[in-house]
């Protein structure tokens, strides 16, 4: 919402400065977004008289002018404008002036050998219009030496406020003035509108043609004919104001409707009566109907839109935009003035569907003042008669004035209850009354009043709204900051859930492994979603912002992989990224999960990325991903060995270099592995890429325990001893199975078994591999004798053979 200072002062008698007014507007909730003060930019431009204009000696197109600037002797100005001539009045800029339209500051110049002091300016150079064909021509009586901006009334600051949707009344200058007056910035002086005395009956009739359930779509419609008008440009003052707020003057009749739209938040429409065929009918549009609107575009209408039609067809989209056919132009002699009420929701949905934003729609969808419907028509009639002459008909009114909302019983104590601010009843009542509320004291009870909201405030529904009105005008700065009592006495209680702790902890754990936390889009492309197990129609956005951001992600990995690829393309190929965030398996509220995923690319090994002098660079592989996954599980408090690692994973992984993490076959919590070459190809990725992903929601909670004490530590006094075994097994035998067999050989004694070498090649038969296992024996009661140790070793070998077919390497 924009208006000028002088326009505001038509409604508000005030001595306040521009700065004070702006400060007050923001303070009471009409936030000033921007103030444009054209006078400040144009203060150096003055009115000048061209005394002489002679041909430049060295340039055909230039003239040398002697210019009276009103101060001191005439100055010499070289000017290239074709219209520069002796005797004219124009606009002069002395040297040192910033010329906004050219983005230069004038210096003293010599043009083709002739000295030039200052400049005569075109309207384009002042950024007043596009006109740069010649210098500005002013009337002969323009006072030489005076500020041009002041003389031309261009020094009217334009104030733009950011209007919240609840304040349709402030979509008019009068409403803004009312708020300022209530806030103590002056006296409201909006003139009342005198009813128009019609000279004859309006020859055009209006029917509101709606079913009983649809009456709310057009509750009230006023219409008046003014005949014998002479339409033409509107007066300078009106054009200046309209231009200042960014509207293009069209002709007096149209400008009047725009002016009242902004002056009183009352949108109107004018029809050229000669182009209206028969009577007007207000009704729902019929399927297939079309209209060429005032913007020259054709709109296809349906029953969801309300229209004003005549015998010819649709003439106007109600409350949104009129039709081109019956619009007013300079040939209009008879004008029909429409002032109507429309259903805000219907206007909003029509505007949305047709994609039309107009000043009328803006106001109707927020709610215009129903009590100003007929006065709006009268005000427009007065202006038409004043600017275009003509003879008014009586006003036809179809429909009924809506019934005013009933008063609210308002306990004054609500202000203190909700805000903590204590005000006198007198002050509170005065604020409401200045805003146009009627305050009815209830007999015998001064604690409460019956308050009637004014017709222009559709947003006022209850006590909280009245509290807001009172405190915003009284001043929010008067509300004292008051400590909120602590939730519990003493030390603050813990508040996080296990999952919340795990989400935060997972981030720290993965970052501690040298990975960088990424936050990628929740959306992926349809193809990415499908590859990573998603792509369900229920998770596809109906209005995605881009084709590659169309589906909710089923996995964090596609986003991380794409990010790694982007980094590689910038020259950073060895990257380790992780993300802990939401993934979606369905649109239901229980189908969103917290996943943690990590991805390593190139040579971003856990011990350090890239080439290194002390070690040959190796590409990332499935074991890096496995290490990350197991480290995360450990950080989440999952006991080592509790999770099962089942070879093979989802289809987007390399089938021979991936595994599924599970607690039993039904409880899968994640996977790790290298990405499948087909995945890389489909998503335009370059490997190697190794990744893991774990669903944090799926991890088991630690056992609840009555105390925080750790289990008793059981230490043996006896030395542990280690024995190494080199087994030969089939190449396909799993190390985990061999270790399990070894450990199972003597549970009481074997504290640990680990693989320290795997070898294939000379010395080992084809199809076999050698797996070297180190076993740690921990005696419990007594030191083992050599015979006992040999017996355990034999059992280990026997068990390994029995379970995996292993033999000792000879």
């Amino acid at each position, binding site marked *: 919402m924009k208006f000028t200072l002088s326009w505001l002062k038509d409604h508000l008698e005030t001595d306040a400065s521009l700065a004070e007014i702006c400060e007050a507007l923001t303070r*009471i909730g009409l936030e000033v977004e921007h103030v444009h003060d054209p006078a400040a930019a144009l203060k150096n431009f003055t009115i000048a008289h061209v005394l002489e204009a002679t041909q430049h000696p060295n340039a055909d197109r230039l003239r040398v002018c002697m210019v009276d600037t009103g101060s001191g002797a005439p100055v010499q100005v070289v000017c290239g404008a074709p219209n520069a001539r002796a005797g004219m009045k124009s606009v002069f800029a002395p040297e040192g002036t910033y010329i906004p339209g050219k983005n230069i500051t004038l210096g003293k110049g010599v043009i083709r050998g002739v000295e030039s002091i200052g400049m005569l300016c075109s309207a384009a150079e002042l950024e007043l219009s596009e006109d740069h064909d010649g210098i500005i021509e002013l009337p002969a009586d323009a006072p030489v030496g005076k500020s041009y901006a002041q003389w031309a009334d261009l020094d009217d600051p334009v104030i733009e406020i950011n209007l919240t949707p609840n304040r349709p009344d402030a979509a008019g200058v009068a409403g803004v003035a009312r708020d300022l007056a209530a806030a103590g910035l002056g006296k409201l002086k909006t003139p009342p509108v005198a009813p128009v005395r019609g000279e004859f009956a309006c020859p055009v009739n209006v029917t509101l043609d709606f079913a009983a359930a649809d009456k709310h779509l057009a509750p009230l419609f006023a219409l008046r004919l003014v005949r014998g008008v002479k339409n033409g440009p509107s007066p300078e003052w009106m054009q200046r104001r309209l231009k200042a707020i960014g509207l293009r003057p069209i002709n007096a009749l149209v400008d009047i409707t725009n002016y009242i739209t902004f002056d009183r938040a009352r949108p109107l429409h004018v029809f050229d009566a000669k182009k209206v065929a028969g009577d007007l009918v207000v009704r729902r549009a019929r399927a297939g109907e079309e209209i060429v609107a005032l913007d020259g575009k054709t709109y296809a209408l349906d029953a969801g839109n309300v229209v004003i039609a005549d015998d010819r067809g649709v003439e106007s989209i109600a409350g949104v935009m009129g039709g081109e056919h019956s619009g007013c132009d300079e040939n209009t002699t008879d004008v029909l003035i429409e002032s109507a009420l429309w259903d805000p929701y219907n206007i909003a949905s029509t505007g949305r569907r047709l994609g039309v934003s107009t000043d009328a729609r803006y106001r109707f969808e927020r709610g215009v003042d129903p009590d100003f419907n007929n006065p709006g028509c009268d005000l427009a009639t007065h202006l038409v008669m004043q600017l275009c002459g003509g003879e008014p008909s009586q006003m036809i009114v179809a429909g009924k004035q809506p019934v005013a909302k009933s008063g609210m019983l308002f306990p004054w104590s609500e202000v203190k209850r909700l805000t903590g601010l204590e005000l006198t009843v007198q002050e509170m009542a005065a604020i409401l009354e200045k805003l146009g509320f009627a305050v009815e004291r209830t007999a015998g009870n001064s604690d409460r009043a019956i308050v009637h909201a004014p017709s222009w405030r559709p947003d006022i529904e209850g006590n909280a709204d009245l509290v807001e009105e009172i405190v915003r005008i009284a001043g929010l700065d008067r509300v004292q900051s*008051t400590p909120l009592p602590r939730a519990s006495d003493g030390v603050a209680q813990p508040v996080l859930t296990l999952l919340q702790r795990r989400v935060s902890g997972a981030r720290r754990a993965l970052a501690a492994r040298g990975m960088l936390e990424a936050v990628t889009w929740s959306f992926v492309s349809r193809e990415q979603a499908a590859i990573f197990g998603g792509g369900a129609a229920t998770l596809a956005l*109906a209005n995605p912002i881009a084709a590659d951001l169309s589906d909710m992600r089923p996995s964090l990995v596609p986003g991380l992989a794409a990010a790694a690829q982007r980094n590689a393309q910038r020259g950073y190929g060895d990257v380790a990224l992780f993300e802990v965030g939401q993934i979606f398996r369905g*649109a239901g509220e229980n189908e969103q999960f917290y996943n943690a995923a990590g991805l390593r690319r190139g040579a971003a090994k856990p011990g350090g990325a890239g080439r290194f002098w002390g070690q040959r660079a190796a590409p990332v592989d499935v074991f890096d991903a496995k290490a990350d996954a197991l480290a995360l599980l450990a950080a989440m408090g999952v006991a080592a060995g509790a999770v099962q690692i089942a070879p093979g994973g989802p289809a987007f992984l390399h089938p021979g270099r991936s595994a599924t993490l599970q607690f039993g076959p039904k409880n899968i919590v994640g996977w790790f592995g290298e990405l499948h070459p087909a995945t890389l190809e489909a998503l335009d990725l370059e490997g190697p890429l190794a990744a893991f992903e774990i669903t944090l929601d799926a991890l088991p909670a630690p056992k609840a325990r009555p105390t925080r004490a750790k289990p008793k530590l059981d230490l043996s006094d006896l030395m542990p001893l280690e024995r190494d075994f080199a087994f030969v097994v089939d190449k396909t035998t799993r190390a985990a199975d061999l270790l399990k067999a070894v450990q199972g050989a003597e549970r009481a004694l074997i504290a640990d078994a680990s693989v320290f070498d795997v070898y294939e090649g000379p010395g080992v038969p084809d199809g076999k591999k050698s797996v070297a296992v180190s076993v740690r024996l921990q005696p419990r009661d007594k030191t083992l004798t050599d015979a006992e140790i040999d017996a355990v070793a034999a059992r280990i070998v026997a068990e390994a053979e029995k379970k995996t077919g292993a033999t000792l390497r000879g």
Partner: protein
Amino acid sequence: MHGTSRAILSGAAMSDLQTLETQILGEIAAASDEAGLEAVRVAALGKKGSVSALLATLGKMAPDERKSAGAAINALKDRVGDALAARKSVLKGAALEARLKTETLDVTLPVRTGGLEAGRIHPISQVMDELTEIFADLGFSVAEGPDIETDDYNFTRLNFPEGHPAREMHDTFFFAPGEDGKRKLLRTHTSPVQVRTMLAQKPPIRVICPGRTYRVDSDQTHTPQFHQVEGLVIDRTANLGNLKWVLEEFCKTFFEVKNVKMRFRPSFFPFTEPSMEVDIQCRRQGGEIRFGEGEDWLEILGCGMVHPNVLRNVGVDPQEYQGFAWGMGIDRIAMLKYGMPDLRPFFEADVRWLQHYGFRPLDFPTLAGGLSG
């Protein structure tokens, strides 16, 4: 060999001892390593060594002669012993020094930077941890909800009537209508979590609701996804004065300044009444923003008293309970505090950006240690 006859013992014998000593000491000094020195020792003091041989002659001497000769020979033996020990220590030191020289490495060679040095926490996560720390101290739990929401929770229960222009302030992502004809949407704010909390829990309520939110918006300063944190307090007395205090305490603690001046401006949100926007005072200098000083105002959040309609919509009696709520952008306050100039890189995972603006893995914010250390 030196003489063993009695004839050389007294006169010439003494000068022979001298010669022997000079010779042995010379050999000790000449020994270039411990093995050579050991050979000298054996040749002098070994069983068959020259000094041992002299000692063996003592037994055949007359007692008085034995006494003086014995003293002289033993003194020689001691001096040789001392010289051997001294030389041994010198040779050992030299040998160690030589070994160390061969073992010297170029310690300026770079080492691998692994885990703790290389890893980074994203600023959004860090700020979420900071928010949790601050509000946990004031007794706020952390409430979360789904990103895919119903129209009912995202709008209707929050007092956005169907078709109301306030809905248009939220450019909403929708899904195709389901079997029931209703279409789900991506939450445009975390306020539906407030609705869920109030439906699930009886007052008193103190929660913050951090999370990811979405709007159909993408330009220099907007991204289709962003992060919000909202706060909600519902009890029998919580009023606007308390809201001011909570927000002042939050801003001071979060921005880590002693004082912060805030400006509350009336505004409009469908779910609060009265509604306000809050600016904080700051000084902008170059690309930096300093809080607690300066002449500029910077909008940071929206807030208000929970609208009675919202309370009724979740089954809370607005005459019995009251409260306040606020909301702000996590990405935005992260940018204000830590100086990132643009929002878009938050979601682009450029490793250079993550390394620069990210936080070290162990820099967990605590109130005791100061949020950012």
